[in-house]
């Protein structure tokens, strides 16, 4: 399941999808952008190894260019309906939307238990 609220700087839209094969909607820049213009964001996976809970994700992602009308801000939530501990994460584009380009980066951090 995944849902989001999105703006292009002019209007705000929301959507919810259930029974999906991946969790989360995240925003990236596409091929219309200059080579060095990337989208990005911060994704939090809550209680990732808690075997009593389904896994939830909260994210704020987006893309921007200096020119007006080329922004996108996306806040999203999602759920993986499984209580298994997360030990593998795969990021990918939706089907038919191409591949990540060279210099795309991901950094994975763990937040220590108090």
């Amino acid at each position, binding site marked *: 399941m995944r849902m989001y*609220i999105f*703006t292009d700087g002019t209007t705000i839209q929301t959507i919810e999808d259930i029974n999906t094969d991946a969790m989360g909607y995240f925003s990236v820049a596409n091929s219309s952008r200059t080579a060095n213009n990337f989208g990005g964001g911060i994704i939090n996976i809550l209680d990732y190894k808690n075997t009593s809970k389904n896994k939830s994700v909260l994210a704020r992602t987006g893309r921007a*260019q200096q020119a*007006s009308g080329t922004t996108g*801000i996306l806040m999203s939530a999602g759920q993986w309906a499984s209580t298994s501990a997360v030990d593998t994460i795969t990021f990918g584009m939706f089907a038919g939307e191409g591949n990540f380009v060279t*210099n795309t980066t991901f*950094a994975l951090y763990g937040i220590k238990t108090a």
Partner: protein
Amino acid sequence: MPATYNAIATTTLTATAASISFTSITSSYTDLVVVVKAKSAGNNTTFGLKFNGDTGSNYGSGYMGGQNGSTLTTFNSGTSASFNAQSQSSEFAPNVIHILNYANTNMQKLMFSEVNQPNGYTLQYCAIWSNTSAITTIDVGNFDSAGNHWVTGTSVTIYGIAKA
């Protein structure tokens, strides 16, 4: 803060000022987080970030959010990456700005922030500096007029997020 957040520098104003500057920022982190608690001497609630002394029109900033049941969204380009949340009330409004890959010379610099203002705004920002240079200097402040400069007690802290 998680243990991966290292405080690089902090400044608290002891007199009204247009901006707070951080220089010689090390490139040894993955991301930067700028925590602003600010109050304007005037009625302007927008402030900006400039990087590496770039005062040109090389920045863009947009937001979406709400206030008292109304939705808000816009996007602007300008001479700084602009954000909201410098309060005009008795409160110092908070803003946490996350700058991604600030030292990566293959990317223009993208940043996000979340804003909650004492007068009822909640906003999600996305902004960009259209430059691939590593960020080594950050000026944070209200650059538009002296009447809106930041008051005593306004503080800015920069954290570096440690590389894996």
